């Protein structure tokens, strides 16, 4: 059993696949992390991300999968779910070992697992498109904080860029400490330093005056549309799990 350590990038993952085939490794475990040399574990190999090798693997995949299939593989990796590399590698091996396109062979455990991972990631992507709440800052930028389970921020850029073309906005992933800023023309990745603004008063003074009014209006709207005679807490919680509440204006 060999353990391969890679850098967590998609290119790194594809390079690892290259190594697996190149060295004819059969029992492998792939983990992301930092490479530490240690004489004690001789069967740990470092994968050095190599664009050329990664591209060869990608080219091979393109011959066997549809464009949508490649896209699904990429999204599954993007999600950064813990210990799912083996499922992804297993899927890739199955693809290479079979003559026909296998992306719809749901009877296969790797194809099935990949589709489960995708379902989870897409659900959270969709939830972020729904549950993001912008607050208007004094400089007319709309700011939203998120803490998704999976790393879906890169997957939602296009949605928000298409939707909010005439306002500046920032969506910030607090958990992963990076965000996206749209400046009316382009989007770019940013990191923010929050150490200066930890007093609540600072935060409130950063918002425009009507921000508070619209938050109040939204809260009272949320209360008004509820039909008490139909109360169904279980259903409510299934739709909005509690972990999202701290960023939902109507739930704070």
């Amino acid at each position, binding site marked *: 059993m060999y353990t391969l350590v890679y850098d967590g990038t998609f290119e790194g993952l594809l390079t690892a696949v290259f190594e697996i085939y190149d060295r004819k490794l059969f029992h492998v475990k792939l983990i992301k992390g930092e490479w530490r040399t240690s004489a004690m574990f001789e069967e740990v190999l470092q994968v050095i991300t190599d664009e050329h090798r990664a591209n060869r693997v990608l080219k091979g995949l393109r011959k066997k999968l549809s464009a949508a299939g490649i896209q699904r593989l990429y999204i599954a990796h993007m999600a950064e779910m813990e210990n799912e590399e083996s499922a992804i590698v297993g899927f890739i091996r199955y693809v290479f070992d079979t003559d026909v396109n296998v992306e719809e062979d749901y009877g296969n455990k790797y194809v099935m697992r990949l589709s489960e991972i995708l379902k989870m990631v897409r659900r959270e992507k969709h939830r972020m498109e729904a549950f993001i709440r912008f607050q208007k800052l004094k400089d007319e930028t709309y700011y939203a904080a998120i803490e998704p389970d999976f790393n879906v921020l890169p997957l939602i850029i296009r*949605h928000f860029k298409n939707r909010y073309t*005439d306002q500046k906005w920032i969506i910030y992933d607090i958990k992963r400490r990076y965000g996206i800023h749209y400046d009316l023309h382009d989007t770019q990745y940013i990191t923010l330093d929050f150490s200066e603004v930890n007093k609540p008063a600072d935060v409130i003074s950063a918002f425009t005056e009507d921000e508070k009014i619209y938050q109040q209006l939204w809260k009272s709207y949320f209360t008004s*549309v509820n039909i008490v005679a139909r109360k169904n807490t279980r*259903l409510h919680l299934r739709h909005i799990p509690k972990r999202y509440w701290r960023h939902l204006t109507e739930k704070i």
Partner: protein
Amino acid sequence: MNAERITEKLNILADAAKYDVSCASSGSKRKNDNKGLGNASNGICHSYTEDGRCVSLLKILLTNHCIFDCAYCVSRKNNDIKRAAFTVQEVVDLTINFYRRNYIEGLFLSSGIFKDADYTMERLVRVAKKLRIENNFNGYIHLKSIPGASDELMREAGLYADRLSVNLEMPTEAGLKLLAPEKNRQDMINPMNFLKNEIILRTEEKKLFKRAPLFAPAGQSTQVIIGATPESDQQVLQSASYFYKSFNLKRVYYSGYVPVLADKRLPDLNTSVPLVRENRLYQADWLMRFYGFHVNEIVNNQNPLLDLDIDPKLSWAIRNMQAFPVDINKADVQMILRVPGIGLLSAQKIVSARKFAKLSWEQLKKIGVALNRARYFIVCKSNEFERRDLTGNNIKQFILAESQSKYNKNTQTQLNLF
């Protein structure tokens, strides 16, 4: 802006609109290609009320002043409640500011009848027009068409709104006459018919000229109130089926009557909302629209009421045992769709996956089939067949006895048979 006054209006006019069930914001195709605000196509639920319904649109009345006196409606003329009316600009500001903060997908605007149909409809149209033209707004707009509104106004509404709907209110004309004697069916059907023809016309036009303007791209829908009048499910679903066919409706919504007013023509104020029945009607509606069922297969003279204990597909299967077992590895997708416990997605996956290898119970479970129901109706790679010589009634009892959450709630009052 007078925040207090707006809040009060919003409370009154959102509260009065909450019984309108439609909240869909999908099915349109409005793009943000004017560098403006928003787009409409995906259909996103931005929040959920504590009763578990989705909040996707700012759903409000323009006013709850009304010249009519319909027995089931909170805004009826003779109901002693606070009245309010938004100005056109107020609705526009609320919509834009909620939309910019990603609270909503757009606006659902309905209204009490101010003076007459056209006077009211004209104001609804003015809101939509202002949003589109002055604010470059491409978010979703659903306007409620006012029964009796003129063709000219309906045409204008179609140019700015994504969806239009006329409430049928009651499933049958007799029900309507009983509770809303001042309204008549023909006033509702006329605008529906006009829109249907106009939509067909505009779709043809769009095929020829790519730049032809959108016209109600998300089509029209309607809603009926269930449980306020004594119609059977057969009557309700047959009327729905008729409206789907005759007017190309995108959706029929079923709204379980919430008793809000004391009136001798209506169910008692303590009557509980028919939530299970409403749910079964939606399931039946799905069977008609996506699963290839004819309305008469679901409800007919022998079975005029939907079974409240089990879903309508299971109910149909139990009445039609001769159609089973279905061989998952061979049957047509149409037949697989008729198996209880198999949904649209699972059926699709089954048909894709079986090209590679025959499927077993284990794989079906992974694919997402609800085996607790499906196993009585199918055979697959492993040749065991769960049905053995069970009768439909046996199967129903087995399923009810072992299902935990969904059905048990409704069967608690029954005697324990096993």
